[in-house]
């Protein structure tokens, strides 16, 4: 009886370990991006901020660049090329207006400033927040594996699914103008 109980505990523990390993790997069971085989890195939304940007017409999005610990360290120390293990994430959201912010502008613009209604509306129109997610892109540094593309592997995911091969074939050529900064466009925001 004691032995059976012990066996049961052992089986449960093994099952638990298997379940934990699977869940801890997060997205790693999901599909990898073509060409480079990059997967969505676990927990990337919690990484630290590198900088922000905006792209106007026709894309009209707001963007944030986040980096894993190796990336942030390299950025702060001004280390180029980026060391192996660096991952940079570029998150894009559709730009939308915020009614709450617009109201705040209208209230203050109308009562506490000397702005005309037209001027207030201009401020309202120029104020945008991050709306629905557009897509996320990653650059993964592995100087051996990705030797032919400046040491970087590239990936784009739309709604968790990798974009097609044609899209991924444009990544490196698009980043080539930034060769002097190790193919990375974004600078660290002070």
């Amino acid at each position, binding site marked *: 009886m004691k032995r059976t109980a012990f066996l049961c505990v052992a089986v449960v523990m093994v099952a638990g370990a298997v379940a934990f390993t699977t869940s801890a790997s997060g997205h790693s069971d999901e599909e990898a991006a073509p060409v480079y085989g990059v997967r969505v890195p676990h927990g990337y*939304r919690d990484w630290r901020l590198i900088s*922000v*940007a905006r792209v106007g017409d026709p894309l009209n999005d707001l963007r944030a660049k986040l980096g894993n610990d190796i990336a942030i360290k390299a950025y702060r120390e001004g280390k180029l090329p980026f060391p192996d293990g660096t991952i940079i994430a570029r998150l894009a959201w559709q730009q939308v207006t915020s009614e709450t912010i617009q*109201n705040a502008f209208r*209230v203050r613009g109308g009562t506490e400033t000397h702005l005309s209604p037209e001027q207030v509306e201009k401020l309202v129109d120029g*104020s945008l927040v991050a709306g629905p997610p557009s897509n996320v892109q990653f650059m993964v540094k592995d100087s051996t594996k990705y030797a032919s593309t400046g040491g970087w592997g590239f990936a784009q*995911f739309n709604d968790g699914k990798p974009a097609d091969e044609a899209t991924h074939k444009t990544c490196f050529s698009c980043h080539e103008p930034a060769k002097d900064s190790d193919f990375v466009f974004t600078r660290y925001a002070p």
Partner: protein
Amino acid sequence: MKRIALLLFAIATLAGIVAFTARASGHADEAASPIYGVTIPAGYRDWQLIAVKQLHFAGMGEQLRAQVGNDIAMKAFKEGTRPFPDGSIIAAMHWTRVPSEDNDKVLDPAFPGTHSFVIGSPVNVQFMVKDSRKYAATGGWGFADFKDGKPGDKALHETCFPCHAPAKDRDFVFTDYALAP
């Protein structure tokens, strides 16, 4: 002789601890914001991202902005907890917005005529600190605005709470958590 060495070692250790403590407190010795007495929280640049924004100001053009939060704030944002619990701190970093011709060139083949923008230089950083007792008169929030490490004047800080009043239904916080793409 051995005793003196031990004493020296003890003094050196103590001096090290004092030096470390002084350094670890970082900005805490610097000036506090008027009215609310909020100082710059150490390490806020390492906090997690809440969201990003563009804001257009009269005579100042557009700014690009990022909001980050300490662990208490991020937990509340992710779980949708309102009001925010005491200890929440939200930091809003504001930069000037400048056009990026380099990025435009890169984007042009795929998206002709695209105008893209990146950050220019830092404008200011603002903080909202939740302490429902200490700041009971202002929705539980203490406010602070720092430019180049120095707090803005009293008149500026008098505008914080009235400006946030329209967001009362959202515990006076404008920003929503931007979901992972």
